[in-house]
C-alpha cells in the first residue's frame, strides 16, 4: 500500500510548510529582535533623560547653595565681624546676633539649606541656630570644609558627609564653603562661610526615581567616591561593586552610556563641578514587557504558519489534481475503456503529459482496431480459400466426369477418380488444425491433380520433388491447391501440347521453400516479381485472386517475412511461383 505521506501532494505541502515555517521563524525572530532593540533604545533614552534631570536637580541645588554663599560674601556686617580682633566683646555679640538672624531668615526660607555657618579666623562663630550648641572652635577649624576653603580661592564642595557643627547632632549634608575676606583691602581671608545642603533632599529625590525593579541611581563625586548609593553597605563590604572606571570615563558635563559585562547598563551624566549621576538599569528590564513582546511575535508567527500550511495544502492540491484526474482516467483505461479523453487545458508539464496520454490512448485504440480488422480479414480469406478449394462447380464437373466414365465403362478410371475425390473431400473437410504436415498437403495436391488429370484426359502430367527433411514441416491446409489450379486453368488448359506441373519443396535454413512451376502458356506479358505487389488490386494480375489469397493467408498466419516470394512468368514458356513459409517441425516451432 502506498504510504500517504509519500504522495506528491503531501510532499509538496510539507516542503512548502517547512519552508514557510523556517522563513516565518527567521522573520519573526528578527522583527521581534528589532522591536526589542527599538524598545530598549527608547528605555535607554528615557533613562538618559531621567539621569539628566537628576544631574540638573543636583546641580541646581548646589548652585543655590553657591548663590547663598555669594550673597553673603559681600555682606558688610559679616565682613565687619570677620575683621574684629575681639569678636566676643559686646559689640561683636550684637553683630553676631544680627547676622545670625539674617542667616536664620535665609535658611528658614528654604528647605534644602541645612545650615549656614560662619567661622572666622578670629574665633567668631555665627550660625542660623542659637549659639551654645557648637562644638569647640578648635574642632571646627580642623574640619575639611574650613581648611580646604581657606586654602582655595573659590568654592569648595564636599562629598556627602556628616555635619559636625553642633553637639549631638549628626546630619547628612553636602557642604559648600568659601573663604571670606575681611573689611578693607586685606588679601588674607578672614574666615570661612559654610552653607550645608540638606542631603535628605537629594536622597528623597533619588529614592523616588523608578528605574525598574533592579534599577537605581547613585552619585559619585569628582574623586570617584560614592556620594549616595542605595546599597552603600553592600559596596563597602565588597558584596557589590560598581565599575568606577567606566563611570569616570564620562567627562565633566558629558554623557556615557555603557553596557557592562554583567548585563547592566550605566547611564552617566556629569555635573560641571565633577559629580556624576549614574543610572543603573538591568538589560532584562530595559524591555518592560519583553515577555508580552515575545508572545505577540510568536502568536503572529503561529497565525502565519497556520495560514501558510492551509495555503500549502490548497496549492499542493491544485498542483496535483490534474495528476489525480490522469490517474482516474488511467484506471478507466485499465478497465478497457479507450474512448476517454483527458481534458486538461493547462500548458504545463502535466498538460503535456495529458496530451501525450491522449495520443497514446488513441494509438492503442487504432492498433486494437487494426488487430480486430486483421482478424476479420484472416477469417474472410480463410473462408474464401475453403470456398475456392472445392467449388460446387468443381464438384459437379468431377461428378459429371465420373458418370460419363461409368457410362463408357471406364471402370478403372471411375475408381481412381472417385477415390481421389473421396480423399480430397476428406482432407478439405477433415478435422484438425489449420496446419498440416507437408506430406499430407502433398497427398491432397496429388488427389487434386489426379482428378484434374482424368478430367483433362491426361493433358498434363506432374512431378513432385520434395526433400525428405521438408516433409514434416507444417503448412497451411490447402495452400498449394490454388497454385495448382492456376497452373492448370491459366497455363496448361490453353496449351495445345501436354503440359507438365512441377511441385518442389525444400528447407533453406529456417525457411520452407515451395515451388509450383508449369510450362503452360504463361501470362500475356513477361512478369518477374520479387514478392507479391502489396496493395495491388486482387485482379491486377492474371490469376490474381487465387495468388493474392494464398499470399494473404500466409502473411496473416506467419507475418510479413513470408508469403509469395517470387512470381515469374514468360509468355509460352510457363509460370513459376515460389512460396516461403517458416520451416516448422511437428509441433509448429521453427527448427
Amino acid at each position: 500500500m502506498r504510504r500517504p505521506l509519500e504522495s506528491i501532494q503531501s510532499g509538496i505541502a510539507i516542503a512548502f510548510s517547512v519552508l514557510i515555517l523556517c522563513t516565518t521563524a527567521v522573520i519573526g525572530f528578527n522583527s521581534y529582535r528589532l522591536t526589542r532593540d527599538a524598545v530598549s533604545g527608547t528605555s535607554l533614552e528615557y533613562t538618559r533623560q531621567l539621569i539628566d534631570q537628576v544631574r540638573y536637580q543636583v546641580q541646581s541645588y548646589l548652585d543655590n547653595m553657591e548663590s547663598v554663599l555669594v550673597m553673603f560674601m559681600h555682606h558688610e556686617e559679616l565682613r565687619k565681624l570677620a575683621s574684629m580682633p575681639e569678636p566676643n566683646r559686646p559689640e561683636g555679640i550684637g553683630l553676631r546676633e544680627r547676622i545670625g538672624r539674617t542667616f536664620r531668615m535665609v535658611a528658614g526660607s528654604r528647605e534644602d539649606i541645612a545650615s549656614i555657618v560662619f567661622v572666622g579666623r578670629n574665633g567668631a562663630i555665627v550660625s542660623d541656630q542659637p549659639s551654645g550648641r557648637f562644638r569647640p572652635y578648635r574642632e571646627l577649624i580642623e574640619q575639611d570644609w574650613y581648611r580646604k576653603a581657606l586654602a582655595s580661592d573659590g568654592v569648595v564642595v564636599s562629598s556627602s558627609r556628616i555635619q559636625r557643627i553642633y553637639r549631638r547632632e549628626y546630619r547628612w549634608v553636602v557642604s559648600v564653603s568659601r573663604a571670606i575676606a575681611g573689611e578693607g583691602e586685606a588679601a588674607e581671608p578672614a574666615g570661612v562661610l559654610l552653607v550645608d545642603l540638606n542631603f535628605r533632599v537629594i536622597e528623597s529625590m533619588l529614592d523616588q526615581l523608578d528605574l525598574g525593579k533592579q534599577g537605581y541611581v547613585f552619585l559619585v563625586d569628582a574623586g570617584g567616591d560614592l556620594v549616595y548609593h542605595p546599597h552603600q553597605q553592600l559596596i563597602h563590604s565588597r558584596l557589590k561593586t560598581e565599575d568606577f572606571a567606566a563611570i569616570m570615563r564620562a567627562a565633566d558635563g558629558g554623557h556615557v552610556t555603557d553596557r557592562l559585562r554583567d548585563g547592566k547598563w550605566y547611564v552617566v551624566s556629569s555635573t560641571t563641578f565633577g559629580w556624576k549621576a549614574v543610572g543603573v538599569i538591568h538589560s532584562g528590564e530595559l524591555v518592560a514587557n519583553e515577555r508580552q513582546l515575545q508572545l505577540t511575535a510568536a502568536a503572529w508567527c503561529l497565525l502565519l504558519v497556520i495560514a501558510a500550511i492551509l495555503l500549502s495544502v490548497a496549492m499542493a492540491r491544485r498542483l496535483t489534481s490534474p495528476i489525480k484526474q490522469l490517474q482516474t482516467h488511467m484506471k478507466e483505461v485499465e478497465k478497457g475503456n479507450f474512448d476517454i479523453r483527458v481534458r486538461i487545458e493547462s500548458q504545463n508539464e502535466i498538460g503535456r503529459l495529458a496530451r501525450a496520454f491522449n495520443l497514446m490512448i488513441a494509438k492503442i485504440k487504432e492498433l486494437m482496431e487494426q488487430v480486430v480488422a486483421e482478424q476479420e480479414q484472416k477469417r474472410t480469406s480463410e473462408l474464401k480459400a475453403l470456398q475456392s478449394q472445392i467449388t460446387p462447380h468443381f464438384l459437379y464437373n468431377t461428378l459429371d466426369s465420373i458418370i460419363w466414365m461409368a457410362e463408357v465403362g471406364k471402370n478403372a478410371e471411375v475408381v481412381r477418380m472417385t477415390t481421389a475425390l473421396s480423399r480430397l473431400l476428406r482432407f478439405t473437410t477433415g478435422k484438425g488444425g489449420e496446419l498440416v504436415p507437408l506430406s499430407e498437403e502433398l497427398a491432397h495436391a496429388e488427389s487434386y491433380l489426379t482428378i484434374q488429370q482424368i478430367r483433362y484426359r491426361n493433358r498434363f502430367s506432374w512431378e513432385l520433388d520434395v526433400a525428405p527433411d521438408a516433409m514434416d514441416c507444417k503448412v497451411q491446409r490447402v495452400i498449394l491447391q490454388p497454385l495448382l489450379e492456376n497452373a492448370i486453368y491459366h497455363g496448361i488448359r490453353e496449351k495445345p501440347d501436354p503440359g507438365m506441373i512441377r511441385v518442389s519443396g525444400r528447407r533453406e535454413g529456417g525457411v520452407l521453400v515451395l515451388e509450383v512451376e508449369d510450362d503452360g502458356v504463361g501470362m500475356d506479358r513477361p512478369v518477374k516479381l520479387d514478392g507479391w505487389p502489396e496493395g495491388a488490386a486482387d485482379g491486377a494480375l492474371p490469376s490474381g485472386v487465387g495468388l493474392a489469397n494464398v499470399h494473404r493467408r500466409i502473411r496473416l498466419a506467419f507475418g510479413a517475412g513470408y508469403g509469395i516470394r517470387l512470381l515469374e512468368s514468360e509468355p509460352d514458356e510457363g509460370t513459376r511461383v515460389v512460396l516461403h513459409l517458416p520451416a516448422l517441425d511437428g509441433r509448429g516451432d521453427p527448427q
Partner: protein
Amino acid sequence: MKKMWLFIGGMLAAIVVILLRMSAGWEDERPKVVFIPKTVDTGVAFWNVMRRAVLTAAREYGVDVEIAGTERESDVEEQIRLLRSLVADRSKAPDAIILAATDIDRLVEPAREAVKAGVTLVTVDSGLREDVSASFIATDNYEAGRKAGRKMGSLLGEEATVAVVSVVKGSATAIARERGTADGLTERPGIRILGPYYSNASERQAYEIVAGLLKDHPELDGVVGLNEPTAVGAGKAIRDAGRDGDVLLIGFDNSIDLIAMLDEGTAQALIVQKPFNMGYLAVRTAADALRGRPVTPYINTGSELVTRDDMFTPEHEKLLFPFTEPRDGADGGGR
C-alpha cells in the same frame, strides 16, 4: 490525507507547546516571604536598617515581604506563637520565612514544624542550635565579641576588672558574643571578668545593672555592652555616675545615643554590624532557595570596630549613620 492532517496538527501542537513554555514563568506568582525580626520596635536602628534592606532586596528580587514580629526581644513565647500561627494553615503559609530567633533552643521545634510545612527557612542575625534553616546569615558574633574583648584589653592594660553585660540569656547571638568577649579579654591574663549579666535588651535594665556594678565594684575599669540598648543603658549609668572616661565602655551597634557617646568620649569603641547586608542577603538567599538555586548554609556579614578617631572617615560615616537615621539628636534608645 488523514496522516497529512495529523502531521500538520502535530506541527501546530509543537508550536503551541513552545509558546506555552515561553509564557511559563510569565505569570509566576511572586513568592511570599515573612520577615520576623527580633523586635518591630522602630527605635532600634539596627532593625530599622535591616528592615529597609529587606524591603530593598524584596523589590529587586521580586518577592513580597511582610514584616511580623514581637515588640520586645525577650518575648520568646510570643515569637514561637507567631511562627506557629504562620504555618498553622498550610495553604496560607508563606513560601519563605526569614527569622531572627530570640532563643537558640526554644525556636528549634516551631522552626522545624515550619520547614515540615514546606516553608523555606532562612535565619538571620540569631540562629538556632540545630541545623534547621536553609541558610544562616549573620555577623560572626564570636569574632565580633572577640574584637570587643581585645580592644578593651588593649585599652586597659594588664590589671583590670571588666563587666560584660549581655542581652537575653539563651539567645545564640548573645552566647557567641559572650564567649568571644570573654576570649578576647582573657588574652590578657590580668583581666578579671564580671558577669555576664543580662539586660533582656532593655536600656533601663542595663542602666540598673551597671549603676549597681559601679556602686558594688568601685574598682570596675570597663564595661562591654553586647547590644545597642544595653550599651546605651550602660553608657548612661557611667555618665550619670560621673565616671565617663574613667570607666571605659565598648558597645555593639550604632544608635544616635551610642554615636554621641563615642563622639563625646563616654564610649571608646563600637562594634558595628552590617544589618543592611544581613537583611539584603537574607532576602536574596531566600529568593535563591525558592527558585531552586543552591545557597550557602552560612554567610558571615562581618563587623567593624569603630573608634572615636576613625568614626568620621567616609566609610565609617556611612556605616554609622545610615541615611534613614532620624536626623535630629532625639533619643532613639530602646525601651
